[in-house]
């Protein structure tokens, strides 16, 4: 028990403190720095593993230890199946990525910064999932965001990287604010930040019948907002595609274990907290849970369709992640009974299988990018001969992604589909099935474009080589896990202290499997003939200009709308700035006019007043003289005319005078 206490603290403190030593060690030797990071990851993974038996053989109840930190707020660790599951996954993936980075990041500049941030990232993510109160969790939540920002714009000399990092930071920040608001609501309601305190508060208020469910529903929606931004769900999912500017090792870590999984953790944790009071669940059931499922289902299909069109190999994987996390959200949306419902376990189980296959995909994509120096799939092709090991591993990856039996995602995705089917919304079910079919299509498309066909012109120019061993071995470990992980389902269920109604064999025999598999055939065939056999029919439609391709190439116009909003704000502020400029000029103009006037008067008095009389007389005299001389020269007819006009004028004036005086 003491060992567990110590390791539950060390598992997140060690990477955080060790990250500070990275720059110190780098002073002596670059190699020592790299191996130091790997060593710390190994120890962290060991510490995380040491937590597993206690939970596996324990009662499944949450235990927490805490120390006083600030008055009223304590710092502590919260050990239950959920947190240990995440801790183990993050620590394991940290190790995989640290080893992979030895090969992938070799010879890059700024590796001290890289390893510092990597350890900080792992430490903060473990801290996030193991915190026992909301404030501590929120601090780590922000640290995860900061680390991902810094790692995504790791190549800071490339403008796209910097832009992507900034985009990630701003978009996830929207969710952070929502989460902070939720924490504020929960604190005002229960007067505590700790999970145990909030659970007790909900239970006490529910039994006393004083629970303000309305406010808690608002808090639940705000929590959902936080999860949406962090997990790249509708409508804030576009950042994940931009985040592909990161080094591939970082992308793998970001997708598989840290950052995007934080949102899933948050929702799973809050569903556990909310499910202690049936009253509260009843209040959440009409709106909150359906919204979660809808967001998940819609994100799943949008992500999958976008993955069909992108030409960036990492882009396919990014949209695939968005789509798969949509599946997890859909599963969580059906978890109306908390940990007792299939949806809750299904989404967590899928979360881990997704970590394995998506991580594998990224590690392989990293190897390919490393070898040929581009991310554009149109420039690839025929890599089967030159990269045979990657070819086999990628085959495992796409089979797992598509959910073909008996690999990991077959069981986890099947469970999610079962849970959504049980929830019984027909449109959601159809959309999920459609997504699985599209998933198969984009996997086949990627596979064919990269590995099949003829070598492209781009590849012929360079010497393509298989990835080094240090990059292949982590990928092989993940590939192995992809194959066997599904069979571990009963073990994981008993680890999570969840009783599953379906057995492993049941996954093969229930009604969903034949539907699911038969749906894969048509889309798979289309993708096979279009990209593998190079049959042009579908490809021409995809390359042509029609409403569908317009929508897809613009990513459903989400980024355009956000760009519009940003431009609108910028325009408004520009307008306000101009208006302000006008107003601030007004007093100045006024003053300057007065000064100008005064000056004129002064000049007039000074210069003209003296001479004006002389001048006036002169002018009059001159005018008379010139007038007279003109009259002299003028012909007689015109003189007569003058006189006639003068007489006429005189008569007119006389008439006017008579009329006005009224004689």
């Amino acid at each position, binding site marked *: 028990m003491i060992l567990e206490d110590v390791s539950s603290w060390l598992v997140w403190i060690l990477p955080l403190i060790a990250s500070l030593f990275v720059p110190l060690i780098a002073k002596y030797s670059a190699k020592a720095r790299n191996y130091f990071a790997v060593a710390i990851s190994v120890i962290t993974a060991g510490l995380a593993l040491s937590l597993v038996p206690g939970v596996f053989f324990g009662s499944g109840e949450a235990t927490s230890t805490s120390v006083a930190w*600030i*008055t*009223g707020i304590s710092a502590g660790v919260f050990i239950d199946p959920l947190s240990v599951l995440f801790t183990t996954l993050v620590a394991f993936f940290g190790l995989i990525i640290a080893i992979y980075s030895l090969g992938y990041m070799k010879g890059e500049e700024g590796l001290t910064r890289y390893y510092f941030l990597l350890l900080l990232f792992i430490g903060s993510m473990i801290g996030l999932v193991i915190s026992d109160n909301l404030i501590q969790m929120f601090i780590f939540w922000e640290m995860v965001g900061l680390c991902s920002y810094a790692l995504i714009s790791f190549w800071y000399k490339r*403008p796209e990287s910097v832009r992507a990092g900034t985009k990630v930071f701003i978009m996830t920040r929207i969710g952070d604010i929502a989460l902070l608001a939720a924490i504020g609501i929960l604190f005002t309601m229960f007067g505590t930040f700790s999970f145990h305190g909030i659970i007790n508060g909900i239970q006490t208020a529910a039994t006393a019948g004083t629970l303000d469910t309305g406010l808690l529903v608002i808090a639940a929606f705000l929590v959902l907002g936080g999860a949406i931004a962090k997990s790249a769900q509708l409508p804030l999912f576009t950042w994940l595609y931009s985040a592909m500017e990161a080094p591939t090792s970082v992308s793998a870590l970001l997708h598989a274990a840290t950052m995007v999984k934080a949102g899933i953790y948050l929702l799973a944790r809050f569903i556990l907290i909310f499910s202690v009071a049936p009253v509260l669940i009843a209040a959440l059931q009409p709106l909150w849970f359906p919204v979660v499922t809808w967001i998940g289902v819609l994100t799943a299909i949008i992500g999958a369709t976008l993955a069909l069109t992108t030409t960036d190999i990492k882009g396919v994987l990014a949209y695939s992640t968005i789509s798969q996390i949509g599946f997890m959200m859909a599963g969580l949306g059906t978890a109306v009974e908390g940990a007792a419902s299939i949806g809750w376990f299904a989404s967590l189980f899928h979360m881990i299988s997704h970590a394995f296959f998506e991580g594998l995909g990224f590690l392989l994509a990293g190897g390919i990018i490393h070898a040929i120096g581009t991310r554009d799939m149109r420039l690839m092709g025929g890599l089967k001969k030159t990269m045979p090991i990657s070819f086999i591993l990628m085959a495992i990856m796409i089979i797992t992604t598509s959910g073909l039996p008996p690999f990991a995602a077959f069981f986890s995705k099947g469970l999610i589909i079962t849970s959504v089917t049980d929830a019984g919304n027909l449109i959601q079910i159809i959309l999920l099935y459609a997504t699985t079919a599209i998933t198969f299509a984009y996997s086949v498309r990627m596979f064919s474009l990269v590995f099949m066909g003829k070598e492209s012109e781009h590849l012929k120019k360079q010497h393509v080589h298989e990835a080094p061993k240090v990059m292949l071995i982590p990928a092989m470990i993940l590939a192995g896990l992809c194959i066997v992980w599904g069979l571990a389902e009963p073990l994981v269920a008993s680890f999570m202290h969840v009783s599953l109604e379906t057995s492993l064999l049941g996954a093969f025999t229930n009604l969903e499997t034949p539907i699911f598999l038969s749906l894969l055939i048509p889309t798979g065939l289309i993708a096979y003939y279009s990209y593998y056999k190079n049959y042009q029919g579908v490809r021409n439609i995809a390359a042509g200009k029609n409403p569908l391709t317009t929508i897809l190439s613009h990513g459903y116009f989400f980024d355009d709308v956000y760009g519009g909003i940003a431009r609108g*704000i910028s325009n*408004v*502020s520009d307008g*306000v*700035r101009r208006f*302000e400029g006008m107003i601030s000029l007004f007093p100045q103009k006024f003053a300057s006019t007065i000064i100008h006037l005064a000056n004129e008067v002064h000049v007039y008095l000074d210069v003209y007043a003296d001479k004006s009389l002389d001048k006036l007389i002169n002018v009059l005299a001159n005018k008379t003289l010139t007038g007279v001389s003109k009259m002299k020269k003028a012909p007689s007819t015109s003189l007569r005319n003058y006189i006639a006009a003068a007489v006429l004028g005189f008569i007119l004036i006389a008439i006017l005078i008579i009329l006005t005086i009224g004689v």
Partner: protein
Amino acid sequence: MDFVILSLVMLAVGIYGLLTNRQLLKVFISVELIATAATLNFVILASAAGVGLGEAFLILAFSTDTAISGVILALLVIVAKKYGTSDISKIVQLIQDKDESEVEA
């Protein structure tokens, strides 16, 4: 309550300044105004609640804020020296032009 309004006003002025100004230094001052408004709000509410935490927080917030200001000012000086102007829109224009020329090259 008056102080809460004061902090709100400071926040509003800060946001207004952030939106309308293009000078780096003015933007920085606006950011500082917002930060101070947040700190002020914290301290007011803490003192209203009668918790000593507010004072501790004030000192913490001021010290970190000072450190951050130091770093930001140093960055501003570097940026202004590098681009020869402290107008944000001009700097953005310069960076974009540079990007485009790099792409062309």
